[in-house]
């Protein structure tokens, strides 16, 4: 195209696999007047798509990433650009053999055929490796290689044939202008294009392009080293691109795959080598391509030895040499997940970045659906670019976490594993006290939260007969029996829990009620002082969030949400904010301590003159009280099922509040309790659901058993779908199950029929463990899982697959009725 149009409905920047896929799926969904730009030439503009190793192993522990991968494989297959060759992850170490047991569980959960195989079988499949180094293999017959450049070309062709797409190659974007917070124009070296929607699919350059519009895309370019060794006669003789399964040598963090006559060797074992998007050379200044940087041989030498050990013959073939060696650039993010969705900073500016070849087509389809319908059929809360708080969008944070995360690419990562870099960013006012009490800090949203307190170790003796020790190291990793003891002490006496990581917002003004009503399923037009817990739905009726509203005045609402969800929720709350509503983010000005347990009232009554009796301050209400001169917003509710309050105070008076409660609590045996109690043990006993675990956009309130008795007359987002969900039989319902044996699944494991069959519901969704944890007061280890009605029968026996073994479980509760204190007598005491 010689001349750019003056305007376009949408400008997609970046013609790698992601930009092509977004353009194609927008066209498929009826978008017209799509303009796809790239600075480089087609079909290979020089980004990461052009040099990736292009193989796909479908199984990931993450449901979200596996779903995107499976969707992408189906698309590659449809375009005829997928070659199934199978893939084997091989174990050299016993810890990896155990990890394969967990990978099998994930494979079963997400419905990918896989098998654990012996070294002999590995050698049958890949005759040119040394099986003597190996202990076992995780065999995925459907693993494949794909051609993303060809796929992209076919996608462009298709969208062009629909009359939907125009393409501007070798067109550099110089600026993105905004008007009133929304994209208005894209400036390029070939002219300006008016548009109100831009998609940034620029891979490693994305941060630079986003910055043109005043937004951030928190990723860093990082090096992944690859070499091609050949010619190798055994491979050349196959006369094909790939005839043998791909090998992932997991314990050396490497892979080896046939590529024609060569063996391609790639590594995630070398030191993290990060680059700045602005420093990536231009096409003209690059010997190969901008994302194929000069190979730094010293970094790769140890891996060469590892590769030679596993492939001693083929890699030592006389005449075979390193024919191609690059420091290939890929995108790393602070948490390893993609960056998808509309940026929180600029309306109409979408990100489709930090995507691997294996997810590219699926990401394109989801982003196009999101742009068109406002939701995605695959839940993407973990990939939503809005998930980051401001400090997590800084280059400082991105580089720290990307450096730490790089070597975890093939690592064995425990689901509770904590990051060690860039900690200590957000500290509650109680932090010093917690340090003194020996808190073990876990991080959420950058906040340091005590998970348990070493000062409570003496409680282990007190409750020795009720605390189950975990024999297996994996079960006990990032965990302490102290959590169980804290839980029991809370149920017996009273506990203080730091909840400062909550995100808190206020809506005020004449339009506040209508605005919050539109967001919430529950009726919010309640008397001042009422607390309302409510799901927030997306347009298709799946969960978008769950929060607690407090009506502080006729025209003022406080909303409290989880620390993990605050950034996403903030965007959801402020999108389309009406002119007569003001919004304030109070997260950094309010601290919170939870005071719960049978003696909570005694403690609170001793430090306030306000009425905290059951009559004067009933359950489900909130009001301002004064504690030692500190104005406190006290909310009588509990996520752990106990009598007590969330006490919200001005941040700078938090320490005073903590010290006052602590001192007053001493005669009552107060203990500090960690998030292990709040988020897991106390919650699970009460059957409370967690956003991102039980609640995601693929499930609705009827299935989660959170539908309310009545539907309010006012409109709200997702209402139509919610009404439909209520009218039909639910395909699955959230249940609480108990482990019949002393093993401790961690979440994500498949629930199977008594004969070991995978369970799926009428919508094709699998039954898997959404949350898992101890229930110390009910004497059982608890799992939550959605089950189809035929299995959702209390007392029914099923199986859970954990670490390669199937254990019996029993359906203990169908729906939300809790195992512990089902009548809520304690909370309402």
């Amino acid at each position: 195209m010689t001349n750019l149009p003056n305007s376009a409905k949408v400008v997609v920047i970046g013609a790698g696999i992601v930009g092509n896929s977004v353009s194609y799926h927008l066209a498929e969904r009826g978008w017209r007047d799509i303009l796809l730009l790239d600075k480089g030439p087609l079909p290979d503009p020089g980004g990461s798509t052009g040099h990736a190793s292009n193989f796909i192993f479908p199984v990931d522990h993450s449901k979200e990433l596996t779903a995107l991968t499976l969707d992408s494989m189906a698309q590659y297959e449809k375009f005829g650009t997928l070659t199934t060759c199978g893939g084997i992850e091989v174990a050299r170490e016993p810890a990896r053999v155990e990890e394969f047991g967990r990978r099998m569980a994930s494979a079963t959960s997400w419905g990918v055929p896989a098998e654990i195989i012996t070294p002999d079988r590995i050698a049958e499949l890949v005759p040119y490796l040394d099986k003597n180094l190996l202990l076992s293999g995780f065999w995925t017959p459907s693993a494949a290689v794909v051609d993303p450049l060809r796929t992209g070309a076919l996608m462009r062709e298709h969208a062009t044939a629909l009359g939907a797409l125009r393409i501007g190659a070798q067109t550099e974007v110089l600026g993105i202008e905004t008007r009133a917070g929304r994209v208005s124009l894209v400036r390029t070296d070939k002219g300006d294009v008016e548009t109100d929607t831009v998609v940034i699919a620029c891979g490693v350059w994305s941060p630079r392009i986003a910055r043109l519009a005043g937004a951030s895309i928190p990723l860093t370019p990082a090096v992944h080293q690859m070499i091609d060794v050949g010619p190798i006669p055994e491979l050349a003789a196959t006369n094909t691109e790939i005839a043998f399964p791909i090998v992932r040598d997991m314990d050396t963090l490497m892979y080896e795959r046939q590529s024609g006559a060569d063996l391609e060797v790639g590594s995630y074992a070398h030191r993290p080598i990060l680059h700045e998007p602005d420093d990536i050379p231009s096409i003209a200044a690059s010997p190969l391509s901008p994302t194929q940087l000069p190979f730094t041989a010293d970094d790769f030498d140890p891996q060469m030895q590892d590769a030679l050990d596993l492939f001693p013959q083929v890699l030592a073939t006389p005449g075979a040499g390193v024919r191609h060696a690059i420091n290939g650039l890929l995108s790393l993010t602070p948490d390893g997940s993609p960056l998808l969705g509309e940026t929180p900073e600029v309306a109409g500016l979408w990100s489709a970045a930090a995507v691997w070849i294996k997810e590219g087509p699926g990401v394109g389809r989801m982003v196009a659906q999101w742009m068109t319908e406002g939701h995605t059929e695959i839940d993407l809360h973990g990939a939503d670019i809005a998930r980051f708080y401001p400090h997590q969008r800084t280059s400082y944070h991105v580089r720290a976490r990307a450096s730490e995360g790089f070597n975890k690419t093939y690592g064995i990562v425990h689901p509770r594993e904590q990051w060690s870099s860039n900690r200590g960013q957000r500290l509650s006012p109680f932090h010093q006290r917690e340090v003194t009490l020996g808190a073990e800090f876990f991080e959420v949203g950058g906040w340091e939260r005590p998970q348990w307190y070493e000062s409570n170790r003496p409680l282990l003796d007190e409750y020795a007969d009720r605390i189950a020790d975990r024999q297996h190291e994996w079960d006990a990793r990032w965990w302490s029996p102290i959590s169980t003891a804290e839980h029991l002490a809370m149920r017996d006496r009273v506990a203080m829990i730091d909840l400062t990581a909550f995100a808190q917002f206020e809506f005020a003004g004449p339009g506040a009620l209508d605005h919050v009503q539109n967001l919430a399923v529950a009726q919010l037009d309640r008397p001042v002082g009422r607390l309302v817990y409510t799901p927030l739905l997306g347009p298709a009726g799946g969960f978008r969030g769950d929060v607690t509203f407090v009506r502080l005045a006729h025209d003022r609402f406080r909303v409290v949400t989880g620390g993990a969800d605050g950034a996403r929720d903030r965007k959801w709350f402020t999108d389309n904010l009406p002119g007569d509503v003001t919004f304030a983010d109070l997260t950094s000005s309010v601290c919170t301590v939870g005071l719960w347990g049978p003696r909570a009232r005694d403690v609170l009554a001793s430090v306030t003159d306000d009425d905290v009796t059951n009559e004067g301050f009933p359950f489900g209400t909130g009001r301002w009280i004064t504690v030692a001169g500190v104005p406190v917003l006290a909310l009588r509710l509990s996520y752990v099922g106990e009598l007590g309050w969330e006490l919200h105070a001005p941040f700078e008076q938090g320490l005073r509040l903590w010290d006052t409660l602590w001192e007053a609590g001493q005669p009552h045996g107060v203990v500090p309790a960690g998030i292990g109690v709040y988020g897991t043990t106390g919650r699970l006993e009460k059957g409370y659901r967690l956003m991102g675990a039980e609640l995601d956009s693929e499930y609705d309130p009827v299935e989660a058993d959170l539908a309310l008795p009545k539907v309010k007359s006012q409109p709200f987002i997702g209402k139509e779908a919610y009404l439909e969900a209520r009218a039909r039989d639910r395909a699955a319902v959230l249940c609480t199950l108990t482990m019949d044996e002393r093993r401790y699944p961690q979440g994500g494991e498949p629930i199977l029929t008594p004969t070991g069959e995978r369970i799926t519901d009428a919508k094709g969704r699998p039954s898997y463990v959404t949350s898992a944890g101890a229930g110390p007061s009910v004497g059982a280890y608890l799992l939550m899982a959605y089950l189809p009605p035929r299995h959702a029968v209390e007392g029914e026996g099923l199986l859970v697959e954990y670490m390669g073994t199937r254990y019996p479980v029993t359906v203990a509760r169908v729906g939300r009725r809790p195992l512990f204190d089902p009548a809520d007598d304690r909370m309402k005491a």
Partner: protein
Amino acid sequence: MDVLVCVKRVPATGSEVPLTEDGREVDTRHLGFTIGPHEECAVEEAVRLVERHGGSVTVLTVGPPESAEQLRYALSLGADHAVLVETTDPDPDPQATATAITEAVATLSTPDLVIFGNESADAGNYQVAIRVAHALSLPIVSAVKAITIDPATNQARFQRDSPAGNETYEVDLPSAVAVKEGLNLPRYPSIKGRLRAKKTPIRTVNPELAPGGLRTLRFHSPPEATRETVILGRGPEAAPHVADLLTDLGLTILT
């Protein structure tokens, strides 16, 4: 026979060479380094000669400590020994470079053949080989595209292209020679070669160097070539024009 190959660490650039702001140097912050194509052929030829006739290959470079990377590359291709003549001046001129090489060679057992790339891939001064040969009183032929050794007579035969055909020189060993790309097809480094290279010690010498007489004032990038698209025709009618174009470019073989 003992062969010495001299190589130079040069930036690996694309079609556009980035310059520092003052224009005095190539901006290498984001560039990798390599040896030039002539020198790749020089190393390959040395390795082949020793494979055929026995002896050993020593590779030598003059440059900063980082030049060890290029020595290890040559070792991975099959060179046996490596010498790094370390300089404080990051880019010594041809005169200083030649002096450094000459002094370093004096510390080695006298090679039978000293092979240079015809000119360095970056500066292209065409001087070092001739200066070294002169200083060591060795015969030298440049632009050589074929080498044969006759051990019986201890002579070398060097062949090079000329506009009229080609020229062949016979010289007595020891000799120097400056070779050009096309001399051979260099091999790729093998994995084992690379692992061996990693373990081979590099001998470092630190000569006192007087600066030479050549100073770089500044570089200028050539004006961007304007590109023009000419449509040669459409469908079958385009074929003769395409054939003419390929002939003009010298890409067709007339039989």
